[in-house]
């Protein structure tokens, strides 16, 4: 098991600067670090390897062409890239009108829990320590709060839809999500660098 090393904020800034300068080598490096996670998010949303691969292509093309839109003051690069992946995947899910079938399949597969069966192998993947930290933070949440967050993030459900899906009053869902986000933010406050 290789020891993970941290990628400093300086290194991230350098990577962004090189992307802005149209350095294709920087895009290649970013792909090496982030592709497993982008693919993981896309697959988690879509449950389909081909569609997830399509999303990976869309995400890195968007990063390449829109890197100037990344505002470092609003957050690190990795969450920005992953949010693009999530949005792309949800768009694809909705566009192809497979919403109900796939959502049901995902619900059955994941049952609100985080699926690690496709993990290619712990520390061989760049960013594994962050993955573990986020996992721990999610695991520390009560199950109903974790479920609400997961349904919102990976299935793109609105709070009303989550209330319908889980048979919970809307007000309760709102409270659960607010509290869960606060706890998660607190637990991950120290995550500033992304680790490889």
């Amino acid at each position, binding site marked *: 098991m290789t020891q993970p090393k941290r990628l400093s904020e300086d290194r991230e800034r350098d990577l962004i600067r090189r992307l802005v300068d*149209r350095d*294709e080598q920087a*895009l*290649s490096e970013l*792909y*090496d670090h982030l*592709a*497993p*996670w982008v*693919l*993981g*998010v896309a*697959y*988690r949303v879509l449950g389909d*390897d081909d569609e*997830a*691969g399509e999303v*990976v*292509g869309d995400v*890195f*093309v968007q990063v*390449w*062409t*829109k890197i*100037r839109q990344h505002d470092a003051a609003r*957050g690190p690069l*990795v*969450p920005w890239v*992953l*949010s693009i*992946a*999530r949005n792309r995947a949800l768009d694809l899910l909705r566009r192809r009108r497979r919403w109900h079938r796939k959502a049901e399949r995902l619900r059955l597969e994941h049952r609100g829990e*985080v*699926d*690690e*069966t*496709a*993990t*290619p192998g712990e520390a061989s*993947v760049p*960013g*594994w320590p*962050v*993955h573990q*930290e*986020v*996992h721990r933070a*999610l695991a520390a949440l009560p199950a109903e709060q974790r479920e609400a*967050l*997961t349904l*919102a*993030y*990976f299935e793109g459900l609105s709070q009303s839809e989550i209330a319908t899906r889980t048979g919970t009053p809307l007000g309760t869902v709102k409270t659960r999500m607010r509290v869960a*986000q606060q706890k*998660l*933010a607190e*637990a*991950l*406050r120290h*995550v500033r660098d992304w680790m490889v």
Partner: protein
Amino acid sequence: MTDWMGMSAAPRTPPAGLKARVLARAGAAGAPPRWPLALAAGLALAAAGFAWWGRVEALRVADVQGRLTQMAAAYRDTLSLLRSPGTRVIQIPVSTNGQAGAVTIFADTMSHRWLVTCHHLAPNQPGQVYQLWFITTTGMASAAVIAEAGNVPMVKELEMPKGAGTVVGAAMSIEPGAGSSAPTGPMVFHYML
């Protein structure tokens, strides 16, 4: 901090060949941040080109319009002379170097102007010109020098000579160089009104 929620998904090993396809797509996507600049530059260039073309066209049109206005004014003036009730038409057959031709004078006694047309005058010899004369009560006065001749009819509009006597006739001679102050060469015609 839901920003990091994406990292809770299990990573997946990208299939072989995906990286190459992604980088190729990115390469084909080029550098969009620069194209709006190129587009703006292109539009500015096109606008400048259109402005320049418009300016040149406007000048050309103004020039053509000016020339047309001048021509129309000349034609109106000629027409007024021809239509004048005081205009008298005198046609004088001439022979130049064995070639039959004619000189026609439209003499307007009201505006004291002549319109003279010359048809089928033989081409001038090198160093020679045709010269038209007014015959006045005080002698010959030069009316016009015609340096060209041939099949194209020539038209001259002439004012009556000032300070000379009354015009009583017209004559044409062949003169050397740029013309003479008095007839010296052979007469083409000599006509008394």
